[in-house]
């Protein structure tokens, strides 16, 4: 690398999103989003359907490639290598390596159905990170215990409830020892009585100091756990601030309308 793609860590938030734009065809899903997330911070993103929350999250771990702007994660520019005044697209292997610093939890769990809960969790550590299998199994068992599923190591996803599957998915993401966790509406595919167990696992994770970006409609969770709440509308951040202020004393008319719609 002729010139460093990294910045001095002291000046750098864990995630720096700089004027990111993304179009799908003619539709502008992200219309210039800038956002910093400090290490250890829990950030909740709220907003109406189609406002670009999922797209923003997926840009952060490069499941979507951005049209312009920049996203820095853990001091590294994602997707590009800086060479003088040129940016070279990173090869697939490098993109895969960059994704290791980020764990992602999906709305629909996306567990690997042909593997048991334990096999799901050790897949990344053993196959991608080439860690010792016995050690990975020990860590996976500890993670399963942490999300309250110590007795489900040998179960296949089809035999787990939605809430249990989502907790396995959280454990699978944590097994990679990420610095940042992304959650895309992790409870919205769950039956109401199963939401609590997943939120509890996420609260425990937040309390342990993990940096988290959570797209959610659970305003109670946001109020209780989030350091900061971001409200998005039509591909842009419209309002942000401490949870109590954004949720308790909204300024933007659109946010007020959104909140009263969600709460009613």
């Amino acid at each position, binding site marked *: 690398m002729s010139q460093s793609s990294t910045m001095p860590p002291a000046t750098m938030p864990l995630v720096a999103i700089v004027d990111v734009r993304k179009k799908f065809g003619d539709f502008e899903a992200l219309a210039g989003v800038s956002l910093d997330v400090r290490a250890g911070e829990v950030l909740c993103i709220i907003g109406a359907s189609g406002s670009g929350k999922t797209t923003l999250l997926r840009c952060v*771990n490069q*499941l979507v490639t951005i049209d312009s702007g920049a996203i820095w994660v853990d001091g590294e520019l994602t997707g590009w290598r800086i060479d003088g005044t040129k940016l070279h697209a990173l090869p*697939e*292997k490098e993109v*895969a*390596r960059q*994704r*290791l610093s*980020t*764990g*992602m939890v*999906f709305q*629909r769990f*996306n*567990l*690997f*159905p*042909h*593997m*048991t809960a334990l096999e799901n969790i050790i*897949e*990344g550590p053993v*196959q*991608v*990170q080439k860690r010792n299998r016995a050690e990975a199994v020990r860590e996976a068992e500890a993670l399963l215990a942490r999300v309250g599923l110590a007795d489900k190591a040998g179960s*296949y*996803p*089809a*035999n787990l409830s939605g809430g249990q599957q989502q907790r396995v998915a959280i454990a*699978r*993401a944590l097994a*990679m020892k990420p610095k940042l966790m992304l959650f895309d509406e992790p409870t919205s595919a769950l039956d109401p009585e199963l939401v609590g167990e997943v939120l509890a696992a996420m609260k425990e994770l937040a309390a342990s100091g993990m940096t988290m970006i959570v797209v959610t409609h659970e305003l109670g969770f946001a109020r209780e756990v989030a350091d900061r709440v971001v409200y998005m509308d039509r591909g842009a951040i419209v309002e942000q601030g401490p949870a109590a202020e954004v949720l308790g004393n909204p300024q933007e008319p659109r946010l007020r309308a959104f909140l009263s719609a969600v709460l009613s």
Partner: protein
Amino acid sequence: MPAPNAAASLPDIAHYTHVPNRHWGRWLAVAIIILLIAGLARAFAVGQIEWDFVGRFFTAPAIMTGLYNTLWMTLGAMALGITLGVITAVMRMSPNPVLQGVAMGYTWLFRGTPVILQLLLWFNLALIFPRLGFGEFSVRTVDVMTPALAALLGLGINQGAYTSEVIRAGMLSVDTGQYEAAKAIGMTRLRALRRIIFPQAMRVVIPPLGNEFIGMVKLTSLASVIQFAEILHAAQNIYYANSRVIELLIVAAIWYLIIVSILTPLQMLLERRFARGAGGAR
């Protein structure tokens, strides 16, 4: 006070015997089928077939060699076909338009022409390229392109074009969320295919692939036209000499039936192996 038991006022049927439905229609159908089979068997038994010839030639050395050739050609052509099919399907599903185009061209070319024509083309390759290789490292094509090699290439490459579509259907059957979850734990595309996508695609792929396998057992008989000594070719060679046409065709038919009968349970074993986690333990 316990509620009065209604059963007390009903007739006591506890000791009666249960008589199941008689299904007279089924018995009638079975009787008719047995009669038809018996009639057919009698027709063949008294017909112009000398059954002791069938027995005598059933394990004749030439037939055994033919059986061996049919078996290895089936395995070889399917191995080549599956290999090419997987490669082609992966190319077809890749984001690279050049690879996509090559894959589509291959499928188009080999699905668009009859196998027997492809076999003849491979066998007669010497007419196009008298020698293969460069300069002093070249050989006469006729020495290399034996009936066996021509059959292997012809059947295998043709099979690859069909198998690629079967594999592609399997890959498409896996939810896109699985690719994303695999990427999210740092997998490259090829690793995700190998560890996550293919094992799940197998469940969808095995039944049609079993079909193709059975088809290939019989397709090898086409290679008799380029003098490859598989079962049918062996049977024909014998009846050209002794004129026992029907007897030898029956010998060949029985051997094909035996091979296919062995393949079917193997397929079921494989299917069970790849059904892991498919909610079967519920």
